[in-house]
């Protein structure tokens, strides 16, 4: 009896296929209902690889464990991830706002991708060349791969301009006037004030309530350089900084921007713009997703003609007449943990997710611009009027510095912005405050100059 059972068991065991090797990879990103493909593209890339393994008779299965962080924003997410890495609990693959790559690379949490990129030309050769600048760390090497691209802009409500008696030529000519440098930031303030004073809007201009990057466009327009091109160090040009802050100060004093804009909730701000209580809102092209969505109480036209009849887009106008407007792009990137057990598999997954077929799904659903040339030719991309319309604004787009300490700088800058808007400091005082704080926090890592030209 025993022998029979033993034979049967042996037969069964040999009949069962040997269990496949499972390759577990942790993939982390920030939760966002509008951008499910940031993580899903990696998951689907794993399916492609698994199919290839199967076809080739390789006994491996890749399993992606996705973790969607519920932090308040990208900066909080990045800080938490730094903590996770510090206790060796970091993910294998993760998304990151590009300006953090410096800090992650410096700490050895983001793999040098140059060899991996060179080995996978089929995926990476077609990536828009200027996007690679956004993933370069302070060692001059590429430590990530652009996951998407976008463009920041001022959204303005054309219906309100019609209400206050502006003609169509003026309304539709605004972007061109901004491009030429004829229409300045001060003109924008004056226009917003006119709209508000004539009762067409409750708020003239709204911006984000927390630290971010869109307001940096305005600083760029005023000639603020955050990095000294000669030394590569962070810098604070006081004169230009004061001019930029003075613009925000004026907006608040004139009632164009509410003094407690920075204390408002995101919901309140978006709702004010959507329900046509605010004339101008400053965000990125992907905001069209919620603008044309059905949330926030009202519905707007979803088609190109209807939307563009109602809403217009502007880069940050020049600070002085004849100057250049400023554009800013803020790619999210993929990075790989150098400590991962499977660097090649991770790089393959990122490469597959970068190919047009996968990336276009993210681009069109979340209104992000293409990261490869080929992507723009795909029918799905062409059919999305939002990204097609935004693509030309990518020309001349700049990025925020990838300096590891820029996030500290930006937080201080935002506090200064809040101080002038709330009337707690004048622009001159705020520059003094920013200089003190930068000196305190960053010490020698930041150069403080009287002006950018110095």
């Amino acid at each position: 009896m025993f022998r029979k059972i033993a034979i049967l068991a042996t037969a069964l065991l040999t009949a069962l296929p040997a269990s496949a090797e499972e390759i577990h990879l942790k993939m982390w990103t920030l939760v966002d209902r509008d951008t499910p493909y940031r993580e899903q593209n990696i998951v689907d890339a794993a399916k492609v690889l698994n199919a290839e393994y199967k076809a080739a008779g390789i006994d491996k299965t890749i399993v992606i464990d996705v973790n969607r962080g519920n932090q308040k924003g990208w900066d909080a997410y990045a800080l938490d991830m730094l903590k996770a890495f510090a206790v060796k609990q970091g993910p294998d693959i993760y998304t990151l706002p590009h300006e953090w790559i410096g800090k992650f690379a410096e700490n050895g949490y983001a793999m040098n991708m140059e060899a991996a990129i060179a080995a996978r030309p089929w995926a990476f050769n077609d990536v828009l060349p200027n996007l690679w600048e956004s993933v370069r760390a302070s060692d001059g090497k590429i430590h990530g791969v652009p996951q998407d691209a976008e463009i920041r802009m001022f959204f303005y409500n054309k219906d309100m301009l019609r209400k206050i008696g502006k003609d169509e030529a003026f309304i539709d000519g605004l972007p061109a006037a901004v491009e030429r440098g004829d229409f300045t930031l001060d003109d924008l303030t004056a226009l917003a004030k006119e709209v508000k004073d004539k009762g067409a809007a409750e708020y003239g201009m709204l911006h984000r309530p927390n630290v971010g990057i869109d307001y940096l466009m305005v600083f760029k327009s005023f000639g603020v350089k955050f990095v000294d091109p000669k030394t590569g160090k962070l810098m604070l040009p006081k004169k230009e900084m004061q001019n930029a802050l003075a613009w925000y100060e004026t907006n608040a004093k004139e009632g164009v921007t509410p003094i407690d804009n920075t204390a408002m909730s995101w919901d309140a701000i978006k709702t004010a713009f959507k329900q046509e209580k605010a004339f101008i809102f400053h965000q990125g092209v992907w905001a069209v997703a919620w603008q044309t969505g059905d949330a926030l109480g009202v519905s707007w036209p979803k088609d190109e003609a209807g939307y563009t009849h109602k809403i217009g887009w502007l880069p940050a106008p020049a600070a002085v007449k004849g100057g250049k407007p400023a554009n800013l792009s803020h790619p999210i990137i993929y990075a790989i943990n150098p400590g991962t057990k499977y660097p090649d598999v991770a790089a393959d997954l990122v490469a597959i997710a970068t190919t047009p077929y996968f990336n276009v799904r993210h681009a069109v659903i979340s209104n992000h611009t293409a990261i490869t040339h080929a992507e723009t030719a795909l029918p799905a991309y062409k059919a999305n009027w939002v990204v097609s319309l935004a693509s030309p604004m990518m020309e001349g787009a700049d990025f925020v510095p990838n300096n590891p300490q820029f996030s500290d700088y930006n937080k201080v800058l935002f506090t200064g912005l809040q101080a002038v808007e709330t009337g707690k400091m004048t622009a001159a005082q705020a520059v003094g405050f920013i200089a003190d704080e930068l000196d305190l926090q960053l010490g020698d890592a930041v150069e403080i100059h009287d002006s950018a030209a110095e």
Partner: protein
Amino acid sequence: MSQAFVPVRCRRARPALFLAPAASLLLLFFLAPIVIDVGIAFTNMGESLKVTAWTLKNFDRILGADRMIPLILLTTFLYVTATLFFFNVGLGVVLAITTTAVSDRLGALFRGIWILPRMSPAVIYALLWIWVVDSSPQGLLNQVVTGIFGLAPLNLRNDHPLLVIILANGFVGASFAMVVLTSTIRSIPEHLFHAARVDGASEWSVLRFVVLPSLKGPVWFITIYQALSLLVTFEYILLITNGGPVYDSTTYALYVYRRAFEGGHYAYGAALAIALMLFGVCFTLLQWRLFGDGMNRTRPRIEVL
């Protein structure tokens, strides 16, 4: 007979055994964090949690370079003294006296109402405050201000953030003193009131010579206990104003938190926290020195039945 010594050895072991749970909790949650905090304060730990050097730089910053500190200390002083004086003690005494002076049912009802803010979750309580002082004309306060008084809408959270956090904390804090002092007043023997009235004492005299003397001890306890608790807690401030605008309603404890966790300057936050710990220890020692260890355990001077 010699066997009788064995239990003695057991008895010696027992205190340690009985103290072990409490001692280990103290060690784990009080002493260990202090030791870790002091350790971190002497490092350069930043966002990445890496320590590459031992340094005194954080203390240099606190003592000289950080120009926010005088403002933060002033804010903390105003916040603690105003909340304590007007609400946690002042309003608490008033509530205890008034709710014990009216009928029991009515008194209980009012005490119940005043205890509601303490019972409700901090986040909900804070949200209610945000709605009350909302700067739009639809805010509760502004409906009163504009609708009834015909004034311009107020924006308290921006213009007087310190006032908002004092009020918000005060309305929560008053209930503690109210409960403690109510039971103190209740424990005054009834016949003292009767005796005073027979002697022709007015209501004021009863209050002045019978009630208030009995409150002295508990009021001291409440003052010190609540002062320490106001110094180290900041959840309502964080939720209602986030310490802003800028740093205008940032008290010292919140400043420690903001430096450490908003900016990721953990070592600097740890160094700042040492000052808070030192202050707490000194304050407690001072209290012992002034009132003695038995402050709350002295024999009552009134007769307790």
